[in-house]
């Protein structure tokens, strides 16, 4: 019996490895640092993430596969890798003072984030359902813990438990879907699945895969965990989940459906179009009713998943690049919005109600202006990143014959304006609320906010380079 040596091209997964190693280093560092030195572990994580970003840039245009075609380095994956890393860097910048104020400043916190990032990076480079599944679990398990990280806060624990139960539940469906796809085609490799003949079992498997992805990116009707988990989890983790998980899961979602299942496109496109309509509509309408800003942003993130789904339905190069650009824009914008919420907290108290934002424009004009920009970008106003993203998505939809879906999307973004403006209205037009002082913004939080702001404006005013990078990178 001969044993062939697989092609161990470690360069292809260098970003994943670097983040994984940093996670281990940070975890070990936890043992040898005093409580005053935990901040250093955060800096170490930043270094690891930046190094991974450098390694990822080295993979641009590499177009290589490794490990028996289980992972694939294409520009699609590199773009999402960088998006996720950007999200993680911003999240860690926001975390330094937040974790101290909330007394959860430990090495595990950073290590778990890094482990989760490892899973995300693996997920967007995976070219095999087995790897996608493992990556999905690797990104989810640390997040279950992180959601419950504030152990003395019952809401946080509740968020962790709910997230875990529903997450594990959905992974079982996902796994069943993989098994059926495997049974129908005899392979788990995405490209080889595409090469085999469609069958009923494959269709059922695809449907179960869809359920699994729908849970992770929070599509209606598999969205109901989102508001509770987002509300209960520590705000930095909520921010991280809302962007990075979406980027990673959508990366695998796009890859799985566009690479492996184009033969079934006739079937899943209609289903996804209906889901997109439901997701956008429910997300936006429910967000209208929320008084808690974290819940509002949770529903808004559901709605944004709906917009991105339009890009998947549109398919084609335009759809893929629109989805990638949108994910990047959404990552920066949403982290900015959450960052502003974090920056406005006072010790362990956070401004969670929209009414808490009263009069902030006078106490913190800069921060209020930033939050306004992020909200306008989420609502899709030019000249910010969110507008270009929506423009590309609706353009892709119209181009590929889904004009009605673009109409629904446009009407939805109209509804969304109303709730995105509510904190803005409170900040500029209401009187300050009793019991809140003028917020003091920590330097690192300010740095994260400024970085996000620059990104949001730059992507809005000069979107050409990012669009070019997002175009046509999905390797088959």
């Amino acid at each position, binding site marked *: 019996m001969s044993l062939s040596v697989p092609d161990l091209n470690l360069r292809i997964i260098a970003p994943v490895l670097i983040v994984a190693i940093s996670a281990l280093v940070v975890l070990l560092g936890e043992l040898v640092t005093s409580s005053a030195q935990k901040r250093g572990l955060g800096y170490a994580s930043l270094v690891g993430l930046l190094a991974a970003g450098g390694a990822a840039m080295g993979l641009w245009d590499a177009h290589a596969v490794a490990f028996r075609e289980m992972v694939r380095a294409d520009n699609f994956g590199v773009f999402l890798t960088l998006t996720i890393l950007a999200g993680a860097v911003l999240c860690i910048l926001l975390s330094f003072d937040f974790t101290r104020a909330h007394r959860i400043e430990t090495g595990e916190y950073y290590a778990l984030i890094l482990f989760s990032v490892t899973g995300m990076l693996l997920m967007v480079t995976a070219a095999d359902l087995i790897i996608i599944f493992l990556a999905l679990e690797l990104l989810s398990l640390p997040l279950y813990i992180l959601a419950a990280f504030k152990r003395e806060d019952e809401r946080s624990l509740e968020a962790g438990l709910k997230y875990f139960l529903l997450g594990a539940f959905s992974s079982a469906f996902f796994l069943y879907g993989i098994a059926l796809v495997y049974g129908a085609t005899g392979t788990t490799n995405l490209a080889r699945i595409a090469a085999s003949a469609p069958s009923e079992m494959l269709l059922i498997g695809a449907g179960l895969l869809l359920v699994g992805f729908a849970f992770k990116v929070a599509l209606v009707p598999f969205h109901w965990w989102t508001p509770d988990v987002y509300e209960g989890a520590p705000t930095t983790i909520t921010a991280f989940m809302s962007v990075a998980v979406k980027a990673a899961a959508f990366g695998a979602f796009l890859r799985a459906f566009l690479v492996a299942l184009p033969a079934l496109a006739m079937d899943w496109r209609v289903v996804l179009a209906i889901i997109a309509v439901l997701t956008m509509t429910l997300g936006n309408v429910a967000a209208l009713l929320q008084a808690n800003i974290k819940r509002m942003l949770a529903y808004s993130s559901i709605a944004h998943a709906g917009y991105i789904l339009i890009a998947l339905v549109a398919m084609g190069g335009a759809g893929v690049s629109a989805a990638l650009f949108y994910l990047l824009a959404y990552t920066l914008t949403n982290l900015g919005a959450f960052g502003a919420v974090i920056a406005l907290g006072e010790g362990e108290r956070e401004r969670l109600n929209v009414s808490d934002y009263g009069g902030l424009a006078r106490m913190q004009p800069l921060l209020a202006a930033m939050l306004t920009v992020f909200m306008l970008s989420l609502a899709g*106003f030019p000249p910010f990143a969110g507008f270009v993203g929506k423009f*590309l998505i*609706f353009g892709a939809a*119209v*181009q590929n014959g889904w004009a009605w879906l673009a109409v629904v999307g446009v009407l939805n973004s*109209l509804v969304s304006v109303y709730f995105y403006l509510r904190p803005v209205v409170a900040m500029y*037009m209401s009187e300050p609320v009793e019991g809140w002082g003028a917020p003091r913004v920590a330097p690192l939080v300010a740095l994260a906010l400024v970085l996000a702001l620059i990104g949001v404006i730059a992507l809005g005013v000069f979107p050409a380079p990012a*669009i*070019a990078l997002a175009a046509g990178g999905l390797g088959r």
Partner: protein
Amino acid sequence: MVPFALSLLVLLPLVGAAIVLLIPKGQKSDSLIKWFAVVWSVIPLLLASYLWFVLFDPNASKMQFEEAYLWISSINVRYHVGVDGLSMPLVWLTTLLTVLGLFYSSYVIHERAREFFFMFLLLETGMIGVFVSLDFFLFYVFWELGLVPMYFLIAIWGHAEDRPQYSAIKFFLYTLVGSVLMLLAIIAMYINTSTATTPGTFDLIELATKRPFANDFVFASLAFWGIFLAFAIKVPLFPFHTWLPDAHTAAPTAGSVILAGILLKLGTYGFVRVLVPIFPQVFQANVLPIAILATISIVYGALVAMAQTDFKRLIAYSSVNHMGYVILGVAAAVAIGGANLTDRAIALNGAMLQMFNHGVITGALFFIVGILYERAHTRDLKSFGGLGAKTPVYGAILLTASFASLGLPGLAGFISEFMVFRGAFATLPLIATICVLGIVFGAAMMLWKVIQNVLLGVFDEKRWAEQEKHGVKLYDMTRFEVITLAPLLFLMVLIGVYPSVILNTLNTISVAILGQIVK
């Protein structure tokens, strides 16, 4: 030649807005901000004046001061700006009204001055941007950019008793509904003009020659009505006008001036710049319904205005009436019929001149209402009377502006309305006849409601003496108020007696536009 003239014009207010934000906090910072903003806003006015009166060639039908750079290469979006006879006067008017608005506000805005002047300058960038954009994507970006500051101007500095937040969000959502439909139409046109090898275009000039959906009347109609709705809401054309009275009543004086003077023009400007050249067939096929909507706006606007007791609401409804003439003129210019090019050009010239005139006249009227409101703290027409004798300067200015508004010969309004009707009688005689009613009602509302109620009659000494104890005092116009209004009054008279100053410019472009679409 001024390099990057139009880019400068767009960017200067933005830079000014940024500097306003940077002026350090201190005891005198408010007065510094006001002083700076007013002086700074004069620079775009001077630049625009120089461009129009010195460099601009009124006989050239092509775009002038053009700049074009590739902006978003993958979807062929260009930063393409330029002005012609249609946009140049409106750009100039924007810079003028901004200066006047800022100057007036520097005396009456005491709260949150920094934000006010910031928003105002940002608004100017948005408005100029729309007028100079020759790329539909860029046009849309500026279109939306102007929306946000106006929203804040109404919501924050609006009159507290007029539900400013409600009015602001109503204005915002109405405009947004229209503009998102326009966005879809923009995307559709882009995709329709693209081929397998070449990308589509957002360029307004190219679109006018390529005529998207030329062979597909259904899609052309969809795109047309999508864009139509965006502009019709902005104009506002009946039945999309309901946001206007609320927004106007609530807005601070300078906000109302800009809203009436410029923002409404964005809609009619869009009609002439986008709908007529790009969708001539669809427009021609739908001239009748559009002209009927214009008629309703004209007659209904005047009638409702007459029924108002609130001075500012009255002026707001009179805007519905006056903007109706613009749409009537445009419709008359493209209508199918035997009329020759001259008749059509007269109608379009009238429509374009009416845009400019309405900006001048209604801008002035909103200043006048605001000045009265500052003193009396009421806009109820019934509570005034005899102001003509009590405050003669105010009376004279109000009289002039009202006469201009109702179309008295010798003042600006007459010229444009006359031209609109002159053109409309040639192509849409029946509709034009009905619209004459609007003129009658318009005159009635100005004479009967405004002049009689406010200026004539008996001054209620007792009532105002009583009011004076509460710090309400009716006094005549102060110097800064006269300075604010003087340029507008000058323009009313100038255009009234010597319209050629502007008509030559307009005529070149309307002949060019109509020559493209009418055989």
